[in-house]
């Protein structure tokens, strides 16, 4: 097969395999995260409704729902690419992906594409379930979609980087528990950063996850903690930087091709 006769079937098949992989265990990969987020909603909304100032004219439950949806999108996009890759590495079946004639960018698109689908699927199911709990607005649906896509792509890419770097399950667990989890929890999912002391507001501005959540929330309410173009710019830069790093790792074969 000469290089010129390339067709995208390999990449499409890998994307299909990755989708099939999480779909076969959808109770664990889709329903369980929805249930977890639902429990967060029930507990936090019950305890904090009416006690926390968020956006003007927006109730706490309505404020919380987009945050939880975005948090689920991000965490599940990360979980998909990172867990698939580390499982394949540890069990050795990654060889079936490395032997075929696929270029690094094809591997990148397939893994990140599947991560985005899982993240967006979890987010969509969660939104469908929680939308009945509050009077939600959809001020700018286009921005909701754009930030959901950007966020899932960024976390799918970071998951890919984590999966390439990690050699053991506990390394990827550490990556998730010490980097991804704190960054998502401290991104304004549960509060508006304007209610924080100045120091923590500054710290929040250094967290790219904050901009993903804030831009996503802007799509619902038409207001946000920072300007929309700032959130969009930070997300785009984060995606470009993380994608460049992931591509370099894949192209060099780092921890994949000896």
């Amino acid at each position: 097969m000469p290089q010129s006769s390339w067709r995208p079937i390999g990449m499409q098949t890998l994307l299909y395999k990755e989708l099939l992989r999480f779909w076969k265990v959808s109770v664990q990969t889709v329903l369980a995260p929805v249930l977890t987020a639902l429990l967060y909603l029930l507990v936090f909304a019950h305890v904090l409704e009416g006690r926390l100032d968020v956006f003007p004219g927006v109730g706490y439950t309505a404020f919380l729902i987009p945050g939880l949806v975005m948090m689920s999108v991000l965490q599940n996009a990360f979980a998909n690419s990172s867990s698939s890759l580390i499982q394949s590495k540890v069990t050795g079946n990654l060889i079936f992906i490395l032997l075929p004639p696929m270029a690094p960018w094809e591997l990148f698109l397939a893994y990140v594409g599947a991560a985005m689908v899982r993240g967006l699927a979890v987010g969509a199911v969660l939104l469908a379930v929680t939308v009945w709990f509050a009077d939600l607005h959809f001020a700018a649906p286009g921005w909701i979609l754009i930030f959901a896509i950007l966020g899932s792509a960024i976390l799918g890419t970071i998951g890919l980087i984590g999966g390439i770097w990690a050699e053991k399950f506990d390394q990827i667990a550490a990556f998730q528990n010490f980097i991804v989890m704190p960054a998502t929890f401290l991104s304004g999912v549960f509060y508006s950063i304007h209610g924080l002391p100045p120091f923590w507001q500054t710290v929040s501005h250094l967290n790219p996850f904050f901009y993903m959540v804030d831009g996503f929330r802007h799509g619902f309410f038409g207001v946000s903690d920072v300007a929309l173009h700032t959130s969009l710019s930070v997300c785009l830069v984060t995606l470009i930087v993380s994608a460049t790093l992931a591509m370099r790792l894949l192209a060099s074969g780092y921890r994949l091709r000896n």
Partner: protein
Amino acid sequence: MGASLPAPAALEVVNLVKRYGELSALDGVTLRVEQGEFFGLLGPNGAGKTTLISIIAGLTRASSGRATVMGHDVSSDFRAARAALGVVPQELVFDPFFTVREVLRLQSGYFGLRRNDAWIDEILDGLGLTSKANVNMRALSGGMKRRVLVAQALVHRPPVIVLDEPTAGVDVELRQSLWEFVRRLNAQGHTIVLTTHYLEEAQGLCGRIAMLRSGRVIALEATAALIRRFAGGRLVLRLSGALPSALEPLRVPPTPAQAATPADPRQSGGPGALTVLRVDHYADVEAMLAALREAGCVIEEMELVHTDLEDVFLRLMAEDAQSDAGRVKLGLGLGLGVAAGAGKLA
């Protein structure tokens, strides 16, 4: 009238080097496997066989040198090189999420093939996997998983198939059926490269053999020529008396299989223990027996063993190990000489 270009080699590696820090896994390996060959790659553990295969398959990057599959460079023209190659890995690896058929369909797709079920069915049939087609990989026995690995390597009909110890830990029935299937593929024109520790299998299957030791090719010949290189055989004796001194230079250590023959109460090397003599030419046997008779030795048991690939393998490895030792001694001598010289200059 233009001359037609010669067919590219199925596999060609030129001066291939792979270093891991100070360790040389491959130290300038050069070899060429022609299309349609059944080629054996032999060597002890750590000789560099799997490293060589990994570089050819694109799983490992060479430190220097060049490797091609069907004329396609494994780095610069990796798509064509990998499309032409099917590899059965040494480890028993599988994806626990899928059934056998799903695995084979996915593997077809990775190689750019859709609607490949007719060939998949043929492979399943050829490898005795038809009844397991819809069974999850986790539910298969080790032997069945090994068959699926072979099927995965064949799913895109590669002209070159590399089998890295495919029969390790596999029962006799599967080995026979696997070799029958692989022979058929070879007869259809597929090039087969086999690594195995079962030298009888290599001798029976491979037309040509390369032997590797410490990352170097120490022999590369037709199997028959390799065995002829050490013509003759060995005379395995159990004697009642001491071996005459005239025959002592011909004594060789027993092979592991001979050493493992039913325990003899008599001490190894003592009277009655197995004595193995090298027979360079069969015509020498008569003179050897005469020498024993003259020395008053009674032959309790006798067997004339022909040279086989295992003998050749062991002798070549031993010779190369001796050469290594010689090189080390020479190196040390030169090093000491240089050091002494340097001391004088200082």
